[in-house]
């Protein structure tokens, strides 16, 4: 894996969370941690840039980005598909 640490770095920069990302576990709810839908767009853009993937529209829903684990599985499924 290892993607989680990159995802954490992106959340730290773009997630505008009310809590310190380092204190959240992989399954913590990012929306409850203060991520707004506007901030989530910036997170998506940074993820697309970092992992060189494009999220298909059917993945653009709240549940895909609700936790670090959820984001990692979305990113994994896309990088696996392009590998």
């Amino acid at each position, binding site marked *: 894996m290892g993607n989680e640490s990159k995802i954490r770095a992106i959340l730290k920069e773009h997630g505008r969370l009310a809590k310190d990302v380092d204190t959240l576990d992989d399954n913590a709810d990012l929306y*409850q941690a203060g*991520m707004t839908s506007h901030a989530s*767009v910036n997170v998506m853009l940074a993820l697309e840039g970092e992992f060189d993937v494009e*999220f298909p529209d059917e993945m653009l829903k709240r549940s895909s980005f609700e936790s670090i684990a959820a984001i990692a599985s979305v990113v994994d499924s896309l990088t696996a598909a392009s590998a």
Partner: protein
Amino acid sequence: MNRHASSDRADLVARTATIATEVAARHANDVDRDARFPSESFAALREARLLSAAVPRGFGGQGAGMLELGNQCAALAQGCSSSGMVLAMHHIQVACIARHGSDSPYFQKYLRENLVERQELIASITSENGTFGDTRSSICAVEVDGDAMKLDKDATTVSYGAHADAQLVTCRRAADAANSDQVLVLFPKGSYTLEQTGTWDTLGMRGTCSPGARFSGHGKPEQVVPGSFADSSAETMVPYSHILWSALWTGIATDALGRAAACVRGAARRKPGSVPPNAADLARAYVDLQTMRNNWQACAMEFDAMTATDDAAARETLGSMNWALKMNQLKMACSEAAPRLCHQALQIIGILGYKNDTPFSVGRHYRDVLSAALMVSNGRIAGKSASMLLVVKEV
């Protein structure tokens, strides 16, 4: 009971249209002039048991879908815009409770007894001093302490708050929750006070009676709608608001153009054999009215079809950015088309439309629809769409 409910439903729109012409339209001018609540319209709707149109049949309501509710709101708004808007807002609140609270015994009882048996009316408090029109963020927080629950909110705009039997209020989930981590809480009459803090002397939609108010409520934790407002907003409040509002704005524009058409027919009758010069403008205006009506009806039918086949899958779709964009585009299109159409009606009619006391007056319609672009600001909505379009690939 079910047979009763379905026969109720068959003519829901027709019965509302009768109330629109026989009751709402008759009082529309003084509701507007005095900025007073359209109490005659709501007494008639309550009497005809039409306030529970959006309550599912399982709870004794008519179980009307989005298309039917939209046609009902549009029919009422043709007689009185404020009445149509109040009815739409009430249905929005009812839908939030029905679609997100129906697993809870508290809300089941509320749907059956308060909304169906007693035909009660629900107001909404999403606005708050300090959040600047962003419904998806709150400052106030619900406080739950054992079996007790309380909430205070300083709202900028509360429609028919003083005339409603309950308030549905957005707030943060807890004192330590983020601004966007919200829930909906229902406060029936007797569990809150609402102290008016401002006035409602507006250009239009004067009968909605929507001044600022300081809300203070208390009750039990069961009054908190299960789940998060993030979901009930995307899956219910936004689609119901944008579709039903678009429908009633279409109703207002329909009445304004209807007045223009009557004016053109009158001119034609006075001079048979020649087409009045403004008839071509009328023809052009009806092109836009048809587009507007088809726009909201297509969204309503899509909503009804998907929620009827597989509600769980529908909720997924309703939570997607593609659907959010569709709702934003509908709201922007109809809120901008309605004032344009009232403007065109005024140009077609001329001075008789500009005067406030002729059968062809359209000043009230025009002033009423100017609220459409502000009621959740189009600038704010365009900003949200712009942001989503940075990641959405196919629109």
